[in-house]
């Protein structure tokens, strides 16, 4: 492998260079940033780079698994995805894509200026990148809060109209009654077998929407189905924050689109936040004047990280926002 990597960059192979001028200590005296177990700055830089790339590989697989979940869900429910996609705001998504691309550009420029030893230019670039990240998050915040207001969320909540759609009292009751938080975890399977096809049904007949006739005697049944509904009925679909509940074309399982949407964009958003933290650290160090043509590895590595965050978004954008 290392034979193959004899660089066009002209790095002597580290096996080779050590006989040439193998005295690490001389190099160490010259380059204070050189750690004791490396022989040359090139070796240190290459190691750091390879380490970062391996880390990026783990990031790719980390996101990759979610992409797999996405692909599986989409292949199972294509109609859910093309339907759900229309609830996402292409304009906001598009703007965000551009914001990330531009912040990637400033980051790449930052690396360039760090390599050239231009401290002020580097700082400007880092601040711009930071601003891009913040801008991205702000837009994302508006998107999320809009969705949540429209009740486009994951899980059972997707089917519960938000508070202001119905009377205050009912809404409170509703929000707490059917799936209180802890029980939502433990209970769903136990409490809802009626939605599972009844025994004896032929396998191809789906009974999930057919309620079994209540088998209980008088006295039972009244409480089973909650009738807080009359209110929701009168609301005009377009003005209803959770318009999807009134949409006759909504396919079953639409909540899954939002589940995977929040999972993936949420994880991505988290990476943006981490990116802001590390860029912040770079800004601190750059202000202190740590970087120059000899030593800019941290800038380079954070740059790689930031680009991979951009790269993930490049895939997320068409996969969620741009489904025909």
């Amino acid at each position: 492998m290392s034979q193959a990597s004899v660089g066009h960059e002209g790095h002597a192979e580290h096996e080779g260079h050590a006989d040439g001028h193998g005295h690490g200590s001389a190099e160490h005296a010259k380059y204070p940033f050189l750690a004791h177990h490396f022989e040359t700055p090139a070796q240190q830089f290459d190691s750091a780079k390879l380490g970062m790339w391996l880390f990026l590989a783990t990031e790719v697989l980390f996101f990759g698994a979610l992409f797999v979940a996405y692909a599986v869900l989409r292949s199972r429910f294509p109609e859910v995805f093309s339907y759900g996609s229309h609830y996402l705001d292409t304009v906001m998504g598009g703007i965000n894509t551009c914001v990330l691309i531009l912040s990637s550009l400033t980051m790449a420029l930052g690396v360039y200026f760090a390599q050239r030893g231009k401290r002020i230019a580097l700082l400007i670039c880092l601040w711009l990148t930071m601003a891009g990240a913040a801008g991205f998050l702000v837009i994302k915040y508006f998107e999320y809060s809009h969705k949540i207001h429209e009740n486009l969320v994951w899980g059972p909540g997707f089917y519960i109209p938000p508070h202001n759609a119905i009377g205050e009292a009912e809404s409170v009751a509703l929000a707490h009654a059917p799936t209180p938080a802890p029980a939502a975890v433990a209970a769903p399977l136990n409490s809802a077998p009626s939605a599972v096809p009844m025994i004896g049904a032929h396998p191809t007949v789906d009974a999930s929407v057919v309620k079994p006739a209540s088998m209980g005697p008088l006295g039972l049944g009244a409480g089973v189905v909650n009738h807080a509904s009359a209110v929701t009925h009168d609301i005009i679909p377009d003005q209803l924050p959770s318009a999807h509940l009134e949409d006759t074309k909504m396919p079953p399982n639409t909540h899954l689109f939002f589940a995977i949407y929040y999972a993936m964009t949420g994880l991505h958003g988290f990476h943006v936040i981490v990116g802001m933290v590390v860029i912040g650290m770079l800004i601190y160090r750059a202000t202190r004047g740590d970087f120059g043509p000899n030593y800019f590895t941290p800038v380079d590595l954070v740059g790689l990280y930031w680009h991979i965050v951009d790269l993930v978004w490049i895939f997320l954008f068409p996969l969620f926002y741009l489904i025909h």
Partner: protein
Amino acid sequence: MTTIVTPRPELLDTSATTDNYLTFTRGFRSWALTLDHKRIGVMYMSAVLASFFVGGVFALLLRTELLTPGRTIVSADTYNQFFTLHGAIMVFLVIIPSIPAALGNFVLPIMLGAKDVAFPKLNLFSFYLWVGGALFTLYSLAAGGFDTGWTFYTPYSTTTTTGGVIPVLTGVFILGFSSIFTGLNFIVTVHKLRPPGMTWFRMPLFLWALYATAIIQVLATPVLAITVCLLIVERTMNIGIFNPSMGGDPVLYQHFFWFYSHPAVYIMIVPAMGIISEIISVHAHRQIFGYRFIAFSSIAIAMFSFIVWGHHMFVSGQSGLMNTIFSLISFSVAIPSAVKTFNWTMTLYKGTISLTAPMMYGLSFIFLFTIGGLTGIHLATLNTDVHLHDTYFVVAHFHYVMMGSALIGMIGGLHHWWPKMTGRMYNEKAAIIACIIIFVGFNITFFTQFMLGSQGMPRRYYDYLPEFQIYHVISTIGAYIMACGFFLCAACFVQSLLGGKKAPANPWGGRSLEWQCTSPPPHDNFSAPPTVGNCYDFSMLRWDEKEQGYVVDKELEAVAIAAEARGHS
């Protein structure tokens, strides 16, 4: 039997007493904040052994409960927590970090001739991640335990009412990152820190094995991390991707889990195989047979391991087509394993075999791995797996490979490098007796489980049919015997620490670089750059009457080096 030994005197560096990595600096802080890979390795080793003890105690409790059908000592719920904890501790806390993080950390840079791993701080960070993960696992006990099985299958794991599920998932997540960073560190170290002369094909096979393992760690573990994240989100927020009552798919969870956990079983075995390659050749004083085949077979196992995960899901509802594909590919992993097994055996041929304690573990490994691996064939075959899946046959299979092979390999490696790590010898006779007890106890415990399983006894069973009792009793007795063996083994180590004979630099006549530095090694590993030669060339050893062992003969060494130089030019 008593071929304990000393090497050529000039390597018995007297300065060892004044400067070695153990005494280099002192005090708690100097250990807690150390960046020295050797110290980190030692800390890992102690932590892993402690976890092994805990996991072993759970195993004994399990076995005791299974002495009789119905209740013996605990209730069904407690039993379920026991085997879950046993499995989770043994897998995530013991066997995955044991060889790469504990032994690998200590040995890899020295074997390679480097001063340290590429990222010492990251290395220490990995260790603390391990500690954090272990603490979370412990905390999960306080939070109510967890009874999901080590596989965390949904929807059981998302609906069970035991309170420790989220803490342990967090723990697994953290442990995953610990493992990732170790792997990352090793790959970079092997790529970038090889000293002059250390070409890829001069690397000892243990390094190849660690390298292959690291590839798996880096590429597979992130998937586990995201999977447990999704489980946590599923439990706390009912997101529904794996939850059938929200339209999700539990089988998808299994795909995710095994995408990691199948490669994970090779994270356990591949480094152990590396250790065995070292042990067999060093203690048989014989050039390893088929170096390149063994080296490449490690890489091949690493690569194949990614595409066979579905063999754990033959009856899980996975489609027939995928079952077929996965079954076919599963067999492919058997080939590199076969290559290794036969090559080790051939290495014994025309060797000069010293039956030292490490060698005894090495031979046990070959014996047990052959059984464990071959029974993998029953499981990889589609129609027999339908019968055997989730029975004790599988339990027996994976104990043969995880405990009988991976863990035995680890203990063997520990015996092999113990003099190097601590600078002390242990009582070899006692160590060999311990090995034999463990070996016998192991086979009594787990061979019966093959019969149990093929007779139809399902695993994870608290209660069982009376006709199975006889097997269970035998198995439990075996487990007690094995425990005695481990206690004896531990006692040997303790005795060695307290009053063991001082170890020479090269007690076994090994040729790889770690035997060139003193025992224990100095802080910087090598005062002068080591000379890299063929680490499997033992022709320069000669019997030393005084030391009752093999030592390196200067003249013979010069001859060998000259010969090699000729061969290479």
